[in-house]
């Protein structure tokens, strides 16, 4: 593909069209065009976008040049008589054929880019991405590393009790980490409803659909932190499941991966150590932390949202037999937003959060759940 250097012209045109915006640093608040890409595909898309927009602008100016000239020169108030012509086969043929040829000119580079985008072969690293309501899971398929990634912006910032941070709504607890200059293949799917994984600077977006595994690839050239968001309406907290990707040099990435593997075995050790008997206060304290997973739907106060998300306070489940409660939390409820947490939470976390739900918000089941009980249900 020939490198079209039209970005400057297009940026100028956009600025002209906008309300005389002051100097525009790339990707700042007044950004007018696609953000500066950091992947080959992102760059191809940007060039294509600039080219198509430039062609559209030229046609637009020509066509409406005629119209505005007519509005100026052919007014009745100038005392003129209207002409009477009403058709011209020649003109109709000309303005059918010329746009058709222009379209072919647009289709050729578009096709080339598209073929390139869809070629996920010969990748260096494969990561499975799973969308959940409302978080992402990343699994490094050949390396036995897997973790969840959810919004890290505190609730207080969202409701205005604290000033908003620099990366408000675009920050997560565990970012996806990838090596630079490697072809990364992402396998994208979802667990509940449709989500879409999107990082604008990569030019990479794909729907995450339950029952489907979609593929996309990217190759990031510049180390750095890149941010995106879920791009398919997925329910209440669709606006609150960002994507953060850290691109590290291959050496740093390998070191990170090794550390991460150790980390997951540490977690494993923690889980086995959980064979000890936990006291109610220990469980309640831990459960309150883990409850953040539940609060998105069931509310911080456990009252839910009547009709959409059931309350935990006073619910039959949280006050009934403990086995039913555990099964619901671990396996979820098909056809609803209630997902199964046994893959996401450890035995102690499930034990703690169920204990918390049964003894908070005015619930007084009075019983505690031990990690061993959870393990026996796995």
């Amino acid at each position, binding site marked *: 593909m020939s490198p079209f250097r039209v970005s400057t012209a297009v940026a100028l045109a956009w600025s002209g069209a906008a309300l005389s915006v002051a100097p525009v640093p790339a990707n700042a608040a007044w950004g007018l065009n696609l953000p500066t890409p950091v992947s080959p595909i992102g760059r191809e898309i940007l060039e294509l976008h600039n080219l198509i927009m430039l062609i559209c602008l030229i046609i637009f100016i020509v066509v409406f040049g005629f119209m505005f000239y007519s509005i100026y020169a052919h007014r009745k108030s100038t005392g003129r008589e209207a002409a009477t012509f009403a058709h011209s086969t020649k003109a109709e043929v000309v303005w059918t054929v010329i746009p058709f040829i222009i379209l072919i000119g647009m289709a050729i580079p578009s096709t080339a880019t598209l073929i390139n985008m869809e070629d996920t072969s010969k990748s260096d690293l494969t990561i499975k991405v799973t969308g959940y309501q409302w978080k992402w899971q990343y699994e490094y398929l050949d390396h036995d590393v897997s973790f969840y990634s959810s919004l890290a912006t505190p609730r207080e910032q969202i409701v205005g009790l604290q000033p908003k941070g620099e990366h408000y709504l675009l920050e997560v607890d565990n970012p996806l980490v990838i090596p630079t200059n490697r072809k990364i293949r992402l396998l994208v799917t979802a667990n509940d409803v449709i989500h879409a994984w999107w990082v604008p600077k990569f030019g990479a977006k794909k*729907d995450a659909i339950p029952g489907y595994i979609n593929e996309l690839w990217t190759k990031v050239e510049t180390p750095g932190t890149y941010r995106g968001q879920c791009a398919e309406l997925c329910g*209440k907290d669709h606006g609150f499941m960002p994507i953060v990707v850290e691109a590290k040099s291959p050496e740093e990435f390998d070191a990170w991966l090794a550390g991460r593997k150790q980390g997951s075995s540490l977690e494993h050790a923690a889980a086995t150590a959980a064979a000890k008997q936990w006291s109610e206060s220990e469980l309640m304290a831990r459960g309150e932390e883990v409850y953040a997973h539940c609060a998105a739907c069931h509310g911080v106060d456990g009252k839910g949202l009547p009709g*959409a998300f059931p309350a935990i306070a006073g619910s039959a489940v949280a006050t009934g037999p403990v086995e039913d409660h555990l099964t619901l939390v671990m396996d979820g409820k098909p056809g609803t937003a209630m997902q199964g947490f046994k893959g996401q939470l450890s035995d102690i976390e499930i034990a703690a959060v169920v204990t918390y739900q049964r003894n908070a918000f005015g619930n007084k089941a009075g019983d505690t759940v031990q990690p061993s009980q959870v393990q026996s249900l796995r």
Partner: protein
Amino acid sequence: MATADVAHHEEHHHHPSGVMRWITTTNHKDIGTLYLCFSLSMFLLGGLMALVIRAELFQPGLQVVDPHFFNQMTTMHALLMVFGAIMPGFVGFANWMLPMMIGAPDMALPRMNNWSFWILPFAFTMLLSSLFTAGGGPAAGWTLYAPLTIQGGMGVDMTIFAIHMMGISSILGAINIIVTIFNMRAPGMTLMKMPLFVWTWLITAFLLIAVMPVLAGAVTMLLTDRHFGTAFFDPAGGGDPVMFQHIFWFFGHPEVYIMILPAFGIISEIIPTFSRKPLFGYTAMVLATAAIAFLSFIVWAHHMFTVGMPLTGELFFMYSTMLIAVPTGVKVFNWVSTMWRGALTFETPMLFAVAVVFLFTIGGFSGLMLAITPADFQYHDTYFVVAHFHYVLFSGAAMAMMGGAYYWLPKWTGHMYDEKLGKIHFWLTTIFFNVTFFPQHFLGLAGMPRRIPDYALQFTEFNVISSIGAFGLGFAQLLFVYVIVKCVRGGSKATDTVWEAPRGLEWTVPSPAPYHTFETPPKIA
């Protein structure tokens, strides 16, 4: 003799008065008025919901509504505007104008006409009351994508039944229009002599009959998935969530043209009148309309390039979508050529018509950009798309209807509307429309997804501008209502032709148009 006939005739009409007149009416003009009033009220209500959305988006953070209610507002705003404002609005124009334009005394099936209107208030009462049920109204977007729609409460079921009713209403209306055009034309009114508004509606009516049952099928499958154990869209039961999107957009894309072709028709009536020249390229306009309608059936998957289609599928839908630019371009070129070397004046209808051509073309170009599949991966589900479809639906469909209303109001009421206020309404609408929606192009390109109640700080500035524009745009429409009411109540007497030598049979009857017109077919030269 003729006078005696008329007197005799009218004695036998026992028109009920008051409310019963409107409930029992089979008169195309009355039913047209009902449709137009209904459309205007849904337009205002849907606009109010848009203002809730824009109020929440005025600043980052959650201030006005919670995210679940925000999703209900985006969903309900779209359903009201698409099914409540635009579609019934155009049916209102069709009812009023088609019989007068083809020299027919009324619509072919007057009782069905009454029924097709009166389904609507019940459908929308059900749809709107879903907001008050436990769990609220539909919150999965107007596209109702499965599996998200499966999660909703009883409000979703009410929405499904409401859509069934709206679909029945549309199909009945479409049948009536087709039968009227094919059977009720005055002698000599051959198909290729029909005004372009009649042609665009004829083609639109076929689109409606073709795709409304498809939508009904899609929402029925949702209903059975929700309640009767089927798994059409549930992968756990062997179903396919993407199939919903294919079915929905097989309806949805022709639906886009259902909402714009009659607007093209209205524009094609207004521009020649105020250019004092016949429409340029009439035959080409008819053919372009038919070509757009045909293409609308083979482009649907461009709404879903990101679902992971095979490369060949993506290429097919990219090429077919790009083709639509050709007949659409033909239309724009013909409108400009109609104006070329005319004797132009700019009364309110003409202002709206020129603005529609200009602004709709912006939406057309962003549509062409969206058709370019690789670039669409960046635009998809961002505010760029929101900007695009408001440029075609607001400054295309809705503003064409406003222009049409000003154009024919004198014929309907017998009074001239207030030209000065009309022009003020035009400028307020056009300016605030652009203030609202032009910055949304930038927001989308910068990476702001659509349908989010809160956003990152880098999107703040353009959202502030957009929200300010939205409130201006909303309040400007109250002026529109005032101008209409003022015109209905009085004003300077309109002549029969209203404008300087307009073309079309509707200008040969008195203003206001009598309750019954063309009981004897007119002679067509």
